[in-house]
């Protein structure tokens, strides 16, 4: 039946584009320029149209992929992440002479995996999707083969990624043993039907799954790989994985824990609260000490993972849309910041230390202004999107009675402002001794940066519509 394929059409579009990119690469003469990135954009546009058509239809394919509005909302985020990442990749791919076909194909396969992860309603499919996206991202991290740093980053990322996957899988095994199924609906109804007191087996299943997810969303204490992988990868890839992987992982996290394991909330809620608090604190405090912008943003993204965990814990009638809204906001903002870093990456000079930003305002006033917008939004200043997102999360937490988490969140987000503003101080208030170190900005990348900035203001000033969408979307799963 053709109709049963409907739910996976967005993934098919993206995969097809990825395959086309690979084929194009193999027909490319050395040195010939091909608009391979354009293929990716076409695939993403196809996926966007498909997502639009699937909206509200709640179709399901093979019983394991359900294109409900929750999954589609995340798919939307991933499409935005993909389009922006491709736009920011141009300068890196060209300057570092990376194999364009392979680069974009890997990126597109990773996006397809992320989309699958966001819409999968079976634990085994979530695992497959996780591996599809992870393997592609491992390779992307190390795609600069001539760089020792990149290879090391790729290996560390790979090692801890594979390690955490086994934990995730072990959790699935226990869930299977417990319920005889890996399908989330069945798992959920069987767990709900079982005894009220959690059995050791249930705790093992929840525990191993939690560890697996915690690695993927880089929650403390499973965050060690993040700064290394983020620093070693090309900045466009860092932006991509810090947003896309996180969005997909949080989508699956929310789906698994808010549907199948919802009856055990009393147990995982406590553990996750501690993890969330530690994640926010460690991400912020260690972030203050960084002198490399990418590492700094890596710790910032760890802290933002903590805020997302708070949203997950506090998911109640008031705040259940917070996860989705925060993911969208964070994706656009963080990707914008890494976009600026990618654009400034000069090939032989990465320009990624905080002190490299001295006097950026004199050379690229527009870029400096955009970077300021992204950083202020990450810090949660009104009228940027980050403010609305953080407000949403913290007020949801307070309504859920998690006052401690809300207070930690507010405090850490203020501390984080200091390290974001260190970059602002560098850009505006210090001048550099070596002029003209920054490359020219390609058109496509500047358009993408401008679009991110506009989205940030849109979500910050007129958030109503998207907020309602987020709340309605997540209602389709719980």
């Amino acid at each position, binding site marked *: 039946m053709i109709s049963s394929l409907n739910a996976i059409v967005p993934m098919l579009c993206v995969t097809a584009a990825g395959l086309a990119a690979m084929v194009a690469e193999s027909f490319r003469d050395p040195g010939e320029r091909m608009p391979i990135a354009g293929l990716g954009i076409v695939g993403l546009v196809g996926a966007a149209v498909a997502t639009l058509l699937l909206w509200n239809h709640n179709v399901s394919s093979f019983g394991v992929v359900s294109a409900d509005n929750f999954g589609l909302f995340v798919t939307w985020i991933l499409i935005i992440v993909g389009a922006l990442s491709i736009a920011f990749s141009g300068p890196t791919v060209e300057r570092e002479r990376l194999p364009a076909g392979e680069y974009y194909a890997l990126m597109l396969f990773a996006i397809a995996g992320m989309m699958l992860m966001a819409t999968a309603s079976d634990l085994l499919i979530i695992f497959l999707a996780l591996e599809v996206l992870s393997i592609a991202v491992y390779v992307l991290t190390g795609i600069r083969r001539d760089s020792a740093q990149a290879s090391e980053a790729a290996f560390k990322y790979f090692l801890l990624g594979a390690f955490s996957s086994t934990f995730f899988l072990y959790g699935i095994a226990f869930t299977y043993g417990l319920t005889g199924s890996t399908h989330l609906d069945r798992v959920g109804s069987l767990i709900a039907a079982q005894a009220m007191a959690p059995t050791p087996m249930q705790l093992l299943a929840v525990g191993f799954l939690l560890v697996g997810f915690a690695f993927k969303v880089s929650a403390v204490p499973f965050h060690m790989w993040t700064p290394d992988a983020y620093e070693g990868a090309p900045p466009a890839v860092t932006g991509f994985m810090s947003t896309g992987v996180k969005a997909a992982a949080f989508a699956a996290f929310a789906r698994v824990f808010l549907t199948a394991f919802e009856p055990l909330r009393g147990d995982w809620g406590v553990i996750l609260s501690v993890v969330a608090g530690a994640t926010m604190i460690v991400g912020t405090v260690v972030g203050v000490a960084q002198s490399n912008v990418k590492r700094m943003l890596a710790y910032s993204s760890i802290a933002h993972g903590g805020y997302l965990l708070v949203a997950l814990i506090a998911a109640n009638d008031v705040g259940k849309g917070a996860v989705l809204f925060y993911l969208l906001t964070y994706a656009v903002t963080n990707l914008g910041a890494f976009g600026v870093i990618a654009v400034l990456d000069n090939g032989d000079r990465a320009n990624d230390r905080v002190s490299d930003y001295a006097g950026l305002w004199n050379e690229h006033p527009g870029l400096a202004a955009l970077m300021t917008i992204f950083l202020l939004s990450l810090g949660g200043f*009104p009228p940027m999107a980050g403010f609305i997102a953080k407000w949403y999360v913290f007020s949801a937490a307070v309504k859920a009675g998690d006052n401690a988490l809300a207070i930690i969140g507010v405090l850490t987000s203020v501390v984080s402002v200091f390290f974001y503003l260190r970059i602002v101080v560098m850009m505006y208030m210090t001048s550099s001794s070596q002029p003209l170190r920054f490359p020219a900005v390609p058109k496509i990348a500047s358009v993408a940066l401008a679009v991110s900035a506009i989205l940030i203001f849109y979500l910050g000033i007129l958030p109503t519509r998207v907020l309602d969408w987020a709340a309605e979307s997540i209602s389709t799963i719980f």
Partner: protein
Amino acid sequence: MTTYPILSMITFLPVLAGAAIFVCSERVARWLALAGSLATLAISAPLYSHFDKGSTGLQFVESVPWIPSWNVVYSVGIDGISLPFIFLSTVVSVLCVGASWTAVQMRVREFYASLLLAETAMIGLFAATNLFLFYVFWELMIVPMFLLIGVWGGPRRIHAAIKFLLFTLAGSVLMLVGLITLLRASGTLDFQALAATRPNAALQSWLFVAFTAAFAVKVPMFPVHTWLPDAHTEAPTAGSVILAGILLKMGGYGLLRIALPILPDAVRLFRGPMLALSAIAIVYGAYVTLAQTDVKRLIAYSSISHMGFVTLGIFTLNRNGIEGAILQMVNHGIVTGALFLCVGMIYERTHTREIAAYGGVAKLAPIYSTFLALFCLAAAGLPGLNSFVGEFLIISGAFDTRPWYGVMAVWGVALGTTYILWLYYRVALGEVKPGLRALRLDLDLREVATLAPMAALVLTIGLYPESVLGFLRTSVAQLVVASAASAAVVGGM
């Protein structure tokens, strides 16, 4: 009453002008900024002519649903308490544009855009009628101010900017925590609704600590005042004027708008310590002022003393005290703003802020010295000039409730007269310093035009204080009754 959204217009016109500046050349930037701020001032005129002085409610109210799912409303409106501050914001902004005309030569467009963004934030803050909007504008103010100090400031500007940020953000974070708690306890963020459904006394105390910490940093109250001298000294003239003229008033306004009506039980509980801190600020600030050798630092410390009067007046909780406090805020904005303008003008010529480098300016620059004398006398509280009325009201309010604090305030006035007249003596009178003779010290027409409105305000308010007091009388009376009513209820329980 007007039929068009006048408050939104004056709130957002400056930021629109600021955005427009980016698409035009640097030469046009100054004129565009001037036009934007003047237009804002002009269209705010109906606020004064159509204001109903007898009404206790909010006027010129606009209310549009903003984020319906959170019950957040974009609502603005003014009463007698906010009106003087809106007036101050619009006037001071125009003068800041004028004062920076020649002083700012670097990154002119960005400078004026920041200035106009700050104006939007100030007006929006004073017009907001719910706490969400209040907080948004409160935070919005931080960024342009940070840039104004940090980019266009003096040699130690980065230090000053970061110190400013550190203190202000520490305050805002507490306010944000308080805000979320208040929302949870009361289910609303509208000022009037909050005043009608006050939280219980225990919660009020916590909220009072959170909110007052934020406001105290802005005022600044002793002991969180240490950012102010640095920020004032390093900021460019326009930045100092905005700091003194308006930013400090945001704290006092917050106390009046949030602490008094919404948390009256806590206000009564903490009144003693707050009065004591105010008195310390008055006297300590005045003594430290006496020891300063840098003109800008001197005025900065005098601000701490003068703002001590404001908080003293607010926490007397009687009509005289509160009316005096509001008037004192307006006066301090005018007088200290004007003094910073004077300092900035002469600094542009001499490039020094050391008092010792000056002397005999009166002989070289008679017009300048006349203005300086007027503003110094106003700052000293000479009867007939504006500050006298405010300080007199505050002191009489203090004597009505806590006479000892009244005594402290009188002491502060005496010290204030000393340091400010001594400043004038050292700068304007005495032997002409040799280095000054070669400079063309006196003011040009643009500078006279910048100072003249300030002088006019000093005289108008001094001779006819009713011009300001008339607007706030009804609202203050209502505020006093509201906090007293709560006390009665609590007493009866």
